[in-house]
């Protein structure tokens, strides 16, 4: 398998096929002499902006402090939770519990649901 071609930037879906972002980054564990392993998938703005450069991540961190759910770290999902790697990457988790869709929930809660006609609250 090729990490950049087959994993990086692919869409993540949870147990119930709920979209929970993309593979924004991957954590690799490197020991002094052991074979490196990919241990976690990273999801979140912090990781994304770092890919553009430190300037962007600085700006976005400052903005995130003013507004939105208070989350500064990217979400880490252990690789062991990966069910399949295909068109999308299916994870054996519930999106809500991981924190990957904190922003979605925050915007739904603070903005969208306050506008009439936005539909029913998402069920558990």
């Amino acid at each position, binding site marked *: *398998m*090729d*990490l*950049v*071609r087959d994993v*990086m930037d692919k869409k993540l879906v949870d147990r119930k096929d709920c979209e929970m972002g993309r593979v*924004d*980054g*991957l*954590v*690799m*564990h*490197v*020991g002094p002499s052991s*074979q*490196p*392993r*990919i*241990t976690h998938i*990273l999801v979140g703005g912090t*990781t994304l902006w*770092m*890919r553009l450069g430190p300037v962007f991540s600085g700006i976005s961190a400052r903005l995130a402090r003013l507004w939105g759910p208070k989350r500064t770290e990217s979400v880490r999902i*252990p*690789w*062991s939770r990966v069910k399949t790697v295909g068109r999308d990457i299916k994870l054996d988790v519930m999106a809500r519990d991981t924190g990957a869709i904190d922003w979605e929930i925050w915007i739904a809660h603070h903005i969208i649901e306050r506008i009439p006609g936005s539909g029913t609250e998402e069920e558990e």
Partner: protein
Amino acid sequence: MEINVELLIGRKVRDVDGEKVGRIEEFKVERDDKSLLLDSYLVGSSALIERLSAWTLVRPVARALHGRRFYSLYQVPWQDMDLSDPQHPRLRTSKRDLRHAK
């Protein structure tokens, strides 16, 4: 030590003598039960891409052509890559000992 893979993509690699080898473009991995084991790195060297800073454009072409024509691609086994400074990856061997990726 934990390293962010996404930040390694496109990093310039030098060999043990400090000679430029190219940029890290791809990671060959194999499945284990709980994680993925890194097998080797694909490192390409092309002055053209650097000059045009067109790596986002050329990488897929290179991948399609397997780097045979204008873009040379080395396969570096994990043992040969020294990532103790993730900003400046170095090879533990010399560029001459690398083999071209097929």
